[in-house]
């Protein structure tokens, strides 16, 4: 346990050094980087993803995954747009969008926690199915001209220079930090992620925890979908494609183990800042799109290998060791 903590701490240390390096590089190469408006834009351009990354950290630490988030974003937005087109009062449309997220999340959670299907399979079908539904609702049309307050919420600052979504992100970050790092519920998330059988026999209500996580994930994804709709001023069936991969990337780079049980939100926050600042810096330096993808890709490979390579090697080592001992014992027995 102590060693694991140490390794994590050092991974976060590496992330922090990387972040500082990127910030210094950006600040020294492009004069617009440190502009206050740019610092806001840097978050705002990817705000939906980083909000979803918070709940995704919970889910992956819980040894599950939710790759349907991008499609839930689109479906929630399309449900809202569909009802808005039909003349339903806008407040109800927003509510319907959020409810869509809760329902998809409840379905995912039910299939995982009660039917005991693998979350990768369940949410993969969600990834395809929810996106399909979104396209059925709006076909290839885009719906826009939402009430002005909605567009303004997505596009203009709310308090001082800070837009609504950014404020929400920081509030959710604090709530997530308290729950995951300091509360009993947070400990359950880790315990289940480490070994759900052990957790169950110790009296943890594994099903309820998983169900709750997936419902929250659905609601958060739907909320993010509505935020994106407000930011872009219109909704189409194809928004948010590929969000799941970028979000999972942020979480894994933050040192959360894809096998569950390990990780911290501090690491995820650092990785979010790294990816946002890297993207922003490259954008302001007019780095061509392919090269940006290449740099982010390289970072991802590192991120997946970095935190996991140590574990992989040590596991392989111990397996070999066990095999050898067994062979030795059999030889003795024979």
């Amino acid at each position, binding site marked *: 346990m102590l060693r694991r903590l140490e390794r994590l701490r050092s991974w976060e240390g590496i992330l922090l050094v990387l972040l500082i390096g990127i910030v210094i590089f950006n600040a020294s190469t492009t004069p617009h980087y440190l*502009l206050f408006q*740019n610092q806001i834009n840097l978050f705002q351009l990817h705000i939906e993803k980083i909000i979803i990354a918070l709940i995704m950290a919970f889910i992956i630490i819980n040894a599950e995954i939710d790759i349907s988030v991008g499609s839930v974003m689109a479906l929630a937005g399309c449900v809202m747009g569909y009802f808005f087109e039909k003349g339903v009062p806008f407040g109800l449309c927003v509510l319907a969008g959020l409810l869509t997220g809760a329902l998809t999340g409840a379905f995912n959670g039910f299939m995982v926690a009660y039917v005991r299907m693998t979350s990768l399979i369940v949410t993969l079908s969600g990834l395809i199915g929810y996106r399909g539904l979104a396209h059925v609702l709006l076909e290839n049309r885009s719906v826009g001209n939402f009430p002005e307050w909605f567009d303004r919420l997505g596009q203009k600052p709310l308090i001082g220079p800070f837009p609504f979504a950014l404020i929400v992100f920081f509030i959710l970050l604090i709530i997530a930090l308290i729950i995951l790092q300091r509360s009993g519920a947070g400990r359950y998330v880790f315990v289940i992620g480490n070994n759900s059988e052990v957790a169950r026999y110790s009296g943890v209500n594994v099903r309820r925890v998983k169900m709750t996580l997936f419902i929250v994930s659905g609601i958060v994804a739907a909320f993010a979908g509505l935020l994106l709709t407000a930011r872009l001023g219109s909704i189409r069936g194809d928004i948010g494609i590929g969000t799941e991969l970028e979000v999972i990337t942020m979480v894994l780079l933050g040192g959360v183990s894809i096998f569950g049980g390990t990780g911290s939100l501090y690491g995820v926050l650092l990785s979010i800042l790294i990816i946002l600042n890297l993207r922003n810096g490259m954008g302001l330096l007019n780095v061509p799109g392919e090269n940006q993808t290449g740099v982010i890709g390289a970072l991802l490979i590192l991120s997946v290998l970095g935190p996991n390579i140590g574990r992989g090697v040590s596991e392989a080592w111990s397996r070999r060791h066990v095999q050898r001992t067994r062979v030795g014992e059999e030889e003795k027995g024979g």
Partner: protein
Amino acid sequence: MFKKLMMLAVISMLLLSACAPAAPKPEELKMVFLPKFLGNAVFDEAHAGALAAAKELGVTAELQFLAPATGGEGAKQVEIITNATTQGVNAIMLSNNAGDQVAPAAKAARDAGITFVTWDSPIPSAEGEQVFVAQVDFSETGKVMADMARNILGDDGGKFAVLSAGPDSANQNAWIDALKETLKDPAYSNLELLDVVYGNDETEKSTQEALALVDKYPEMELIMAPTTVGIAAAAKAMQDEGLCDKVKVSGLGLPAEMVSFVKNGCSPEFALWSFYDLGYLTYYLTYRLATGEIQAVDGAQFESGKMGTFTITADPTRPDVPGALRVLMGPFSQYNASNIDAAVNP
């Protein structure tokens, strides 16, 4: 924390310097040329045209050529527009690949005093867009395709199929509708459209769809592909399968990609507008607007180098969008064995 401290330390200084952007000299205009995505030959041609115009106009500031890496990332154009606005560029030239989703970013750019022109593909709501430079009149595309089909199939006509881009591609759908409309004319009664299939502008899928058409319709004599990816894929498939004597390929293609198929008879004739000219004209218009020589209003005329004089008009293809303006480039260029070499090596 470190970031915050550094931010605070430098921010006031920078805010001061960013406050009053002086009107730039014409030769120092910073412009961004933003196509739908990178790695497509037609957008590289448009870029070359824009660079030529920049040279003629004596603009020495580097023209930024920025775009998402692939066609599936249309929404990333929003990020590029926002970053360009942060950088305080003077003008943005966009081939829109994200529908109305770019409108808020485009409006923000306009609010920051940036000249905003679209080309190839407009912002449907025209919000944030000053003028759209249209390549051709979309309704003309249908007649051009029908005429090419008649030229290739001969006076006795024949049966053909359409291999399009994606089922949701707005341009292609409009052109196919225009083609169907044209075919209703008795003059084209001996042409029969068998089917419309979609290759999603992917070479592999387009090839499969083209070969599937051959299997499905033995009587088919022509594949009409209104997309540069589809026409090249179909022509190559017919060539590789030795089917060129039986099934010809035509549509909208890029001369450089089609030259060998014209020469070996697989694709005797095809059409396209010049993307080089489109980039050239777009740059001239944007320059005139950014320098304040003309205003983006109905009836404004401007001179566009070797291409002559053009007029800004209300956009007839967006009648329900008040204030939508366009410049129509036109016309089509049709290519066959007689002129393909000149088109490839000007």
